[in-house]
Structures are given as C-alpha cells and as structure tokens.
C-alpha cells in the first residue's frame, strides 16, 4: 500500500517511526494472516457453550488456561479485538498516507517528464519520422484520444511532450476498498456495543447463570431499553406475551427490556411429507403505547418485522408447555392401578416410587414423528408417522438422569401393536427401545397383568408346584429335592422379573463353570418359559379365553413378545412405564430480536468494498508519453509507457499502440 517511499531523513521522531511501522505493508500482511489463523480457533472450538461442557472436555487445568486466553468467546476476547484494532489503524494510516498522493497522481499528466527517465522505461520505442514536429504531435494526440486516452501537450524549447493517460479513476478503487474496511469496522464496532463491554469489564453488568424467571433476574443482569445494540432470543408460547429478550453472554445470559410488548397470537408450521418443516410463521401483535392500535403482522423465516429499529425474526419453534395427561404403570408393583399424572412440558413432577424419590422432567412434546419406513432407504420416499411422543427425564436424588421418549399410540411392528419407549443415559447416545406389547384394547393392561402374576410369589410357587406335580417320588429325600427345586425356581423367576435376562446370565456366570454355562442358561430359559407360560395360560383362563384347544397363535405370539419385553425390563432403568393418555398441544415460537444501528454503516462499507475492488482490478491506470525532438528536417519520436498493475496486458496494448502510431507517423524510409 505504500506506493511511495518517503525519502529517509537523518533523524526521525518516535512518532514517525511508529507511524511508519503501523502503516507498513509487512504489518498489514502479518495482521491479515494472524487474524485468519486466530479465527480458525473459534470454528474448531465450539463457542459460548456452558462452562461445564468445557471442563468435561479439557479437564480443569486446560479449562482455566483456555478461559484465561478467552478461547471460549474468542471473537469477543480482548486480544482478538486488539488485533482487529491494529488492522483498522494500519488500514487507516495507509489510506490517509496514500490518498493525497493518489488524488494528485490521478490528475497529473506528467507532461514535465524528462527524456532521460523515459529512456529508462521498460516499454519504449524510438524512431524517426519525416513528419514535422507539430503534425506528429497532432496525429499522435488524435490517435491516443481515439483510443480513450486523455491527452495533454507541452512544448518546451524545441521539444514537444504528448502525455496521455487512461483509467485513472481506477485508482479510486484503492481508496474506496481500503476506506471501506475502516467503515465496516466502525459499523461493526457500534454493533459490538463497546459501552456494554466496558460495563461488563467494570463488573457493573454480570451474566446470570441460574435458570430463573425473567422477573427475578437481578438488575445487574438486566439491560434497559437504552442499550444501543443487541441480538437476543425469546420463546413465546401461543397466546403468550413478552417484553424482554434474553441475550446470551458467555456461560449465562442477560435480560434485555423492550420498549414494547410482543404477543404471539398464533403459530403455524407446515411440514413436507418427509416430516421436515416446510415453513413456519407467527402471527404477532405489537403492543406499544405509541401505537394507536396494536400492530399486527405475520412473520416467517426470511421475512422479519422491523419495528422502531428493532428487527423481529422467526428463528425456531418448539413446545410452549403442552399440557400432558399420563398414566404411570408401576413395573415393580404391577398389580396396582396406574397412577394418573398431569403436567406440562418444561415442568417437573416429584414422585415417590418403589425405588425412591424420582423427579420427572418433561422436556418436549411432538405431535408428529415422521421417519423413513426403511432405515436403509436413503431415497426418503416412504415415510411413516409414529404419532405424538413425549420426552422426559427421570432423575434420581443423586442427580443422575435417564432420558426417555415415549410414543402415545401403539406402533405396528410386524403386524403387532407395541408401545415404544426409548431410553438413553446421555444425549450423545442413540435411544434403545423397549417394545411393550399392547393388548386388544390398545392398553398395556394385559402385559401388566402378566407382570403382576410373575411378581406374585405365591402364585409363582403354586404354579411351579403344579408343574412339578408328580415328577418326583413321595419319599422324604425326594420331598427334600422337590422343595429345593421349588425354592430355586421361584428365586430364578424373581431374579428374571427383577433384573431381566441380564440378571439370569449374571447368576449363571457367578455359579456355573464356564463350559456348562450356555447349557445352564438354556435350561433356565426353558424353565422360565415353562413357569411364565403356565402363569399366562392361567391368566388367559381367568380372562375367559377358552384354552382347551390350545393357545391361539395370536395369544402365544403375545406371550413371546411379553417375555421379550420382560427380559429387557431389567435394563429399562425406570420403576414405571409412563403412558401418555391425553394432551393439549401448545406451540411456542422462537423469535430472534436484534437492534443493530451499525448495520447501514456496514452495508455502506460493503458497497464501497465491492465497487472499490472491481475498480482496482478492472480499471487500470496507464500512461504513455510521446517525446518529440526535431531531427534532420523530420522528427525523432520517443514513445514510452507505464501501466499501473496488469503488466502483460499493458504490454500488449503498448505494442498495439506503437504499431498504430508507426502507421500514423511512419518511420523515415531507410533510403532517406
């Protein structure tokens, strides 16, 4: 950028040295590269996540180091802003230093150029022409202006200098494009809200990290409507209102007050057949004392509402606290009637269960769950709607939580209906699904009845007794064996019911030598199937099913499915199965609200940048001179040129001009 090197003075002030350093090309290029590299960090390291995530990822030591370096909010870190500041200063100095010289250069034709310096040009040609001096000058000037050059002439002593230039306006491109960086930075600075940063630095503003209602947030985390620029978000349920937005700040948030109230009348979302949202829009009403009547407007993605310099964007949607009615079927006391529960999404319930205190946190409700029919079918043509679902967490007093997703309607799998419930311990895992067979009435009742029977030790024992029947003799030793068998089978059933197939396998691992283990497990399973099968047949009889001709295919299929489910129950982790029985869907619209007074300045800068760059690259300033000296009754022509940038192209142009010039003012024939 320093096109001109100022003559070196013997003594220079510190200020001059600093100025030269700050405006030097080396510093500018270094800054460009360093800022580029620093920016990479922020894209590799997820920014502004809760601090606990970072601690888990990097450990406490590196967490502190990274935090001190500002790596979790790198684009707001002091050192990064200082780097940007240096780029701003460097660019400003370059613009300030070069602009006068460029403006001068654009107007000057340099008719006072010396013959000696023209001879030192890389592009030059010289010949003698029989034409006289003024005729040569006139023809050359005419040719050059026909080729788009602006021409100046000067006669001095016996010489005539024709100086011409073209594309000088391209030099403005330099000024525009570099000044634009300054303008963009200024606009960005305004939107970066330095006063707020300053208050934050002085501790007058502090991020709130607790999850509390907006009204309870202390003053030091609340910003008034005087705040110049911000960008925050708010989720408003249908029918709800808000006059604040939340600004994310490092590991917490700030509450920003608005000078008006936003009401969400209605929210609509449309889906493609794939279940992907096609469009979502919100009917908003703006209540403001300044308005004669409330302002109604529908916003959707890519179509924001701008009111009083505040832009309101549709950014997302979610559940606005749908009300849920549920039945909790105890898996430990299955003979009990299910417990009726009522709650809302984003609320929680405390329950005392057979396994202690549990907190149920309802996190989401979905009206549709549309998935590809075949998981391997990437074409995405066949889809299936699994119907409504709820997502909730079951948290124990130690704070550990398992996350569940339960589908309301029984799902057909291989033609049979199942209640689907997914479980996972951490959000990064895939859900593992429990398929609980639904009975003919579409309830978990029948499965629960079987489970209750399996839990009923008395019934289990009597079933085992009946099954063993007269398998053994009546002598004392046989009786002894028989009662031991009854005991151990009862224990086996209890183990299976409590811990599922895993418990049985573990038991085998602990008590049976490795080589006989598989065999043992197989016989355990056979015994279990026998006992539970008998219980099931008993149950069918009490349901009034005629089993004299054997169990029907459907009923025996149900038993197989139930047994499968039973064997998985041990890993399910919840003391109950939660069945969603009814709901009222309340949607919430996620709005983003921004105030950025610097935006127009940034846009002005962007326009300058685009125009400037195109001018710089595609309008080249070039100069040519024709220096005429009378010689032998004719004229000696010295033609020289220089192009600013784009040397090859100018070379071509120069040679073409030279050829034309040699036609206009021809060479003196060799014979002369």
């Amino acid at each position, binding site marked *: *950028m*320093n096109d001109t090197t100022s003559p070196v003075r013997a003594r220079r002030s510190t200020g001059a040295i600093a100025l030269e350093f700050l405006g030097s*090309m080396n510093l500018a*290029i270094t800054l*460009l*590269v360093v800022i*580029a590299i620093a*920016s*990479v960090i*922020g*894209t590799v390291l*997820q*920014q502004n996540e809760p601090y606990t995530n970072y601690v888990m990822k990097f450990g406490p030591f590196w967490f502190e180091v990274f935090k001190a370096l500002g790596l979790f909010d790198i*684009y707001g870190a002091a050192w990064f802003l200082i780097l940007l500041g240096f780029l701003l200063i460097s660019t400003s100095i370059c613009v300030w230093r070069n602009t006068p010289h460029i403006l001068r250069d654009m107007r000057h034709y340099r008719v006072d150029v010396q013959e000696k310096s023209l001879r030192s040009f890389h592009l030059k040609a010289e010949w003698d022409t029989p034409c006289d001096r*003024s*005729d040569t000058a*006139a023809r050359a*000037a*005419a*040719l050059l*202006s*026909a*080729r788009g050059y602006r021409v100046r002439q000067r006669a001095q002593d016996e010489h005539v200098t024709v100086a011409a230039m073209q594309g000088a306006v391209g030099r403005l491109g330099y000024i525009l494009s570099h000044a634009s960086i300054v303008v963009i930075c200024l606009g*960005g600075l305004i939107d970066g809200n330095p006063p707020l940063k300053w208050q934050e630095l002085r501790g007058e503003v502090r991020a709130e990290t607790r999850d509390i209602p907006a009204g309870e947030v202390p003053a030091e985390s609340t910003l008034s409507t005087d705040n110049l620029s911000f*960008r925050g978000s708010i989720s408003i349920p249908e029918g709800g209102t808000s006059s604040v937005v939340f600004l994310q700040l490092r590991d917490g948030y700030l509450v920003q007050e608005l000078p008006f109230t936003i009401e969400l009348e209605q929210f609509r979302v449309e889906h*493609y057949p*794939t279940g*992907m*949202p*096609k*469009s*979502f829009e919100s009917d908003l009403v703006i209540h403001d004392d300044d308005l004669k009547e409330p302002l109604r407007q529908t916003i*959707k*993605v*890519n*179509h*924001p509402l701008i009111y009083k310099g505040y*832009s309101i*964007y549709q*950014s997302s949607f979610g559940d606005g606290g749908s009300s849920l009615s549920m039945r909790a079927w105890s898996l430990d006391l299955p003979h009990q009637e299910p417990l009726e529960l009522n709650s809302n999404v984003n609320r929680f319930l405390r329950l005392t269960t057979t396994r202690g205190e549990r907190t149920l946190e309802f996190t989401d409700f979905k009206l549709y769950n549309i998935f590809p029919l075949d998981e391997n079918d*990437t*074409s*995405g043509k066949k889809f299936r709607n699994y119907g409504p679902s709820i997502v909730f967490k079951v948290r124990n007093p130690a704070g550990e939580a398992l996350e569940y997703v339960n589908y309301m309607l029984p799902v057909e799998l291989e033609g049979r209906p199942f209640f689907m419930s997914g479980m996972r311990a951490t959000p990064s895992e895939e859900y593992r699904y429990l398929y609980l067979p639904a009975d003919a009435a579409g309830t978990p009742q029948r499965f629960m009845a079987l489970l209750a029977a399996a839990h009923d030790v008395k019934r289990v024992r009597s079933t085992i007794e009946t099954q063993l029947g007269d398998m053994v003799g009546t002598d004392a030793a046989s009786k002894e064996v028989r009662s031991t068998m009854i005991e151990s089978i009862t224990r086996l059933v209890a183990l299976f019911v409590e811990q599922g197939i895993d418990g049985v396998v573990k038991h085998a691992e602990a008590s049976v030598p490795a080589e006989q283990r598989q065999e043992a497990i197989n016989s355990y399973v056979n015994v279990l199937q026998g006992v539970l099968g008998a219980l099931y047949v008993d149950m069918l009889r009490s349901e009034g099913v005629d089993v004299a001709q054997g169990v029907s295919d459907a009923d025996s299929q149900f038993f197989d499915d139930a047994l499968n489910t039973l064997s998985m129950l041990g890993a399910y982790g919840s003391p109950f199965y939660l069945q969603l029985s009814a709901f009222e869907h309340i949607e919430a619209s996620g709005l*983003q609200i*921004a105030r*950025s007074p610097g*935006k127009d300045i*940034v*846009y002005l800068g*962007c326009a300058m*940048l*685009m125009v400037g*760059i*195109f001018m710089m*690259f595609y309008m080249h300033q070039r100069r040519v001179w024709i220096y005429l000296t009378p010689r032998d009754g004719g004229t000696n022509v010295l033609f020289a040129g220089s192009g600013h*940038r784009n*040397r*090859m192209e100018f070379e071509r142009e120069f040679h073409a001009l030279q050829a*034309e010039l040699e036609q*206009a003012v021809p060479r003196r024939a060799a014979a002369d």
Partner: protein
Amino acid sequence: MSVSSDYLEQEFKQPSLLKRLGWFDWLWALLTVAGTVYAHIHYVEFMDSYEVGILYGTAITLIWLGWTWKPTRQLSLVIALLSLFAIALYGSDLARGDSNFFLKYLVSSQSAIMWMSALYVMATFAYFFGMFARSDFSNRVGSALTWSATAMGFTGLMVRWRESYLISHDVGHIPVSNLYEVFILFAVITALMYLFYEGRYKSRQLGGFVLTVISAAVAFLLWYAFARGAHEIQPLVPALQSYWMKIHVPTNFIGYGGFALAAMVAVAYLLVERRPEGWLAGRLPSLEQMDDVMYKAIALGFAFFTVATVLGAMWAAEAWGGYWSWDPKETWALIVWLNYAAWLHLRLTKGWRGRPLAWWSVVGLFITLFAFLGVNMFLSGLHSYGTL
C-alpha cells in the same frame, strides 16, 4: 497545425462495441430477451419482485457475456435447446424420465450430469495426451469435450430445476441448494473460467491441469451420488427459501472456481519452475503467462468472493437476524478472504512474483476447500445444509 484534430480523431476512431456487433449478436440478444419476457409472463406468479429483478439481471448478463465473449452464445443456445427438449419430453410427468429413451439416456438431469462427468474425464485425458504428445489435435478435442461437458452440466442443472417442480410445487427450487448441486456448479463454472482464459491466451496447454481439479470434483460427485444417494432432489428448509440463494451461491462459486483455477495453474508453474530446461517446460506456457493467469484468476475470484460474502451477510441479516454471527462457515469465508487479500497485497504492492505466490495459491486451494467442504463435514453451524 495542418489538419484539424477532430478530423484526425475521426480517422483513428474505431467503431464502438455496438457497431461491431454482427447479426448473430443481435439475434442472440433478441432470443434472450424473448425468453426472458416469456418466463416473466408465464411464471410471474411464482416470483417475488426481487426474483423478477434477478431474471432480468441474468438476461442482461447473458447478453453482455455473449457480446463480449462470443462462444457463450452458442453454448447458451445449446443448453437452452437441450433443456427445452427435456422439458418438452417430460411434460408434466416425472415418471417419463424412466420410460422415455432420450430422457433416460441423454437429457434427464441425472443422465446429463453423468454425460458431463464422463466428458470432463475424457477431456482431462485428451488435454494431457495433447500435452505429452504435443498434439494440437488432441488439445482441440480436449477443448471440444470441455465445452460439451459444460453444456451437459448446465443442461443437467436446468432440467433438475424443472424436475424439482415436477415433484411438487413446494419442492421446486433452483438447484444450488446442497452439496451435490453446488459441486456440479463448481465443475461447470471452473471449466467456463478455464475456457475463457484458453481463448484469451490462445493456449490449450494448461487444460490437463485445470481439468484435473474438475475431474476430482466429478469423482466426488459420483461417489456422493452412488454411495450416499445425494442426487435425490430434497425439499428446501425454510431458511433457504429466499431469492438470495439465487445470487449468493452462484457468485460464491465464481470465487471458488477462480481460486481452484489459480491453484492448478500454480501447480503447472511450480513444475516448470523446478526444471526450467526440463521437457515439461516446452509443453506449457511461459512462466510469465502462467503467473499472469494465476493473478487474473485470483483477482476475479477474490472480487466475486467478496461480493458473495457481502450478499451472504445481507441474507444472514434477513434470515438469522444478524449480518455476522461468527458462524463457522462465515468465519471460514473470512479466513479465505483474508488469505487471498494477503496474497494480492504481496503481489501488487510488495511486488512478489512466481514461486512463493504459486505455493501460496496451492495452499489457498486447501483453505478454500476446507471452507467449502470441511466446514460441512467437521464443524456444525448455521450453514449445515450440505452435510456429508
């Protein structure tokens, strides 16, 4: 003075651009205007005012391009005819793509893209053979194949656009919305830029190098289509349903195309520069010319990349509520921009030439590649439309 300067100026005057236009130029302009007006009248109900503006802007650009770079007239006409042929064959029934012979094997978007892929790969071989054997004929074949491939690629995109509307009105969109579609765009734009310089410098020797990067893009495209089924037309998420997409994405790919072209020329430059007397040196353009092409490509790429980034910022302001969010894609666009800004400063004001800048532009391609692909593959953010 013996003669008046006005008279002299008349003598030297060259006819202006408009006077130099031939009948084909005017026919070209007329056809473009006719097509545009037809599209306007028939489809105005599907367009907002910005899109109408984009339509006419495109027409003006096409006419100007055809007048200043003549071969684009023939290219555009071939693309138009093939696309119209396909659209006519389809009628209103997408299923004809499987039953109609011409659609199935030539002009359905998928077939056209396959033709494009095959032709680009063939062109690469033809150019390299031309270079090794010093066969001008083979080079000319390479050139013809590249033109044909570009025509097929654009046809594929045009027909795909129509096909998306045949699926359903609300699925229809310009095919620049995901990684698969923009890879086609990348291939055809890079090829067009190369063809421009080929005509400008009247030298076909760099074809093999530039077509190598296009062939690599084609290889990715094929893998992406066959292994991931990415060629299926997907509906648009709400954030992408905007006229901005029509200008932001193509502008961006002029930038990417310029950077890719520069990097491949830089590779050729470095190979020659290593052995100035080697056998490759005689088969490639002069170092000075390659250096110049490299600069021109980066300058063009940088200018358009700047515009694309600004357009992107304006779109972001409208869709996400902020013109700059330090989203990974935005940040990487800035990194690419800063990188080439540094490159241009080194060349234009520090006067660097040759080897270091050639290396830098090769490295620049990798940075660009990361911004284009890597961000989608490894980083999450707002731009997650083109995940692998």
